[in-house]
C-alpha cells in the first residue's frame, strides 16, 4: 500500500494532483474551520440548558416564516393579499411572524448584552447580530411602505421629511412604491439573510457564549494566572 503524501497535506482533494486547486483549498479551509460535527453538533454545553438561550433559534424560526410567507405574497401580489381571504390570512401571517421575529430578537439581544456575549473572541458574532438587527428594522419599515393601502401612503409621507433631513432622500424616495418594494423583497432581505447566515456560522465557530462565572470561582482562576475570559468560560462549564 502506498501513502499519498499530497492528499495527506490536503485531504479534501479527490486526486493528489488537484490538491493545489482553489476549490480544493477552499473546501479544505472550510472543513478545517467548521467540520460537520461542529457545524451541526448533537450536543451543546450544559450551560445552554436555559430558556434565555432559546431565543436565538426562535428568532431564526420566525425569520423562516417571514421569508416563506413573503414568497407567497410576492407570487400572488397586492390584489390577492388585500381581497382574497387566503391572501389576507397570509398577509396576517407575514405581519405577525415579523412581530414574533422582533420580539424574540430583542429578548435574545438583551440576554446576550447582559452576559457580554462578545467575550472570548466573539466580537464579530456580536457585531454581525447588531447590524442584522438594524438592517431588519429598515426591512420592516420598507414593508410598511409596500402594503399598497392608505396606511402605507400615510407612513411614506410622514417618513419623507425624516429621510430628506438625513440627506438620503436623493437616492431613497420613500413615496416611490416600486423602489420600496424592491428594497423590501430583494436588497434588504438579501443583506439580512447573509448577515444572519454569517452570524449563525460565527456562533458555531466560536461556540455559544457561557454565562458569567460566580465571582469566587472567577477570582481563584484569575489569581492562578488564567486570563479573565478563559477563566469565566472554564468556570461556567465546570459549574454546569
Amino acid at each position: 500500500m502506498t501513502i499519498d503524501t499530497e492528499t495527506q497535506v490536503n485531504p479534501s482533494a479527490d486526486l493528489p494532483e488537484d490538491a493545489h486547486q482553489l476549490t480544493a483549498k477552499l473546501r479544505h479551509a472550510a472543513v478545517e474551520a467548521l467540520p460537520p460535527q461542529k457545524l451541526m453538533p448533537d450536543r451543546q454545553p450544559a450551560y445552554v440548558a436555559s430558556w434565555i438561550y432559546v431565543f436565538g433559534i426562535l428568532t431564526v424560526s420566525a425569520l423562516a416564516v417571514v421569508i416563506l410567507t413573503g414568497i407567497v405574497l410576492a407570487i400572488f401580489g397586492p390584489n390577492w393579499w388585500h381581497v382574497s381571504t387566503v391572501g389576507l390570512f397570509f398577509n396576517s401571517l407575514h405581519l405577525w411572524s415579523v412581530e414574533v421575529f422582533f420580539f424574540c430578537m430583542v429578548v435574545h439581544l438583551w440576554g446576550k448584552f447582559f452576559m457580554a456575549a462578545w467575550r472570548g473572541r466573539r466580537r464579530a458574532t456580536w457585531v454581525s447580530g447588531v447590524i442584522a438587527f438594524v438592517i431588519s428594522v429598515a426591512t420592516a419599515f420598507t414593508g410598511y411602505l409596500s402594503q399598497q393601502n392608505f396606511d402605507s401612503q400615510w407612513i411614506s409621507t410622514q417618513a419623507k421629511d425624516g429621510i430628506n433631513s438625513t440627506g438620503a432622500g436623493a437616492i431613497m424616495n420613500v413615496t416611490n412604491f416600486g423602489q420600496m418594494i424592491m428594497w423590501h423583497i430583494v436588497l434588504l432581505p438579501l443583506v439580512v439573510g447573509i448577515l444572519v447566515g454569517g452570524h449563525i456560522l460565527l456562533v458555531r465557530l466560536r461556540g455559544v457564549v457561557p454565562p458569567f462565572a460566580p465571582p469566587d470561582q472567577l477570582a481563584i482562576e484569575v489569581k492562578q494566572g488564567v486570563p479573565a475570559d478563559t477563566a469565566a468560560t472554564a468556570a461556567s462549564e465546570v459549574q454546569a
Partner: protein
Amino acid sequence: MQTLSAVMVHVVGSLINLDHPGHYINWGFIQISVANLTVIILMVIVFILAILIPFHRPGGGGDR
C-alpha cells in the same frame, strides 16, 4: 360555517377592540402608544421568566 366564523369574529373581536384610533401615553416630551408599551412590557416579562424558569434537562448534568 358562516355562523361559526361570525361567532368567532364576535368572540375574538370582543376581547380587544382595535377598531378605533390608537391610545397614547404622554409623559413630558415622551409619547408612546399603549400598543407599543404593552409589547415592551411583555418583552421584559418574557426576559425575566426566561432567566428564572428552570429548563428541563433530560438525564441530569453534563453536556446535553
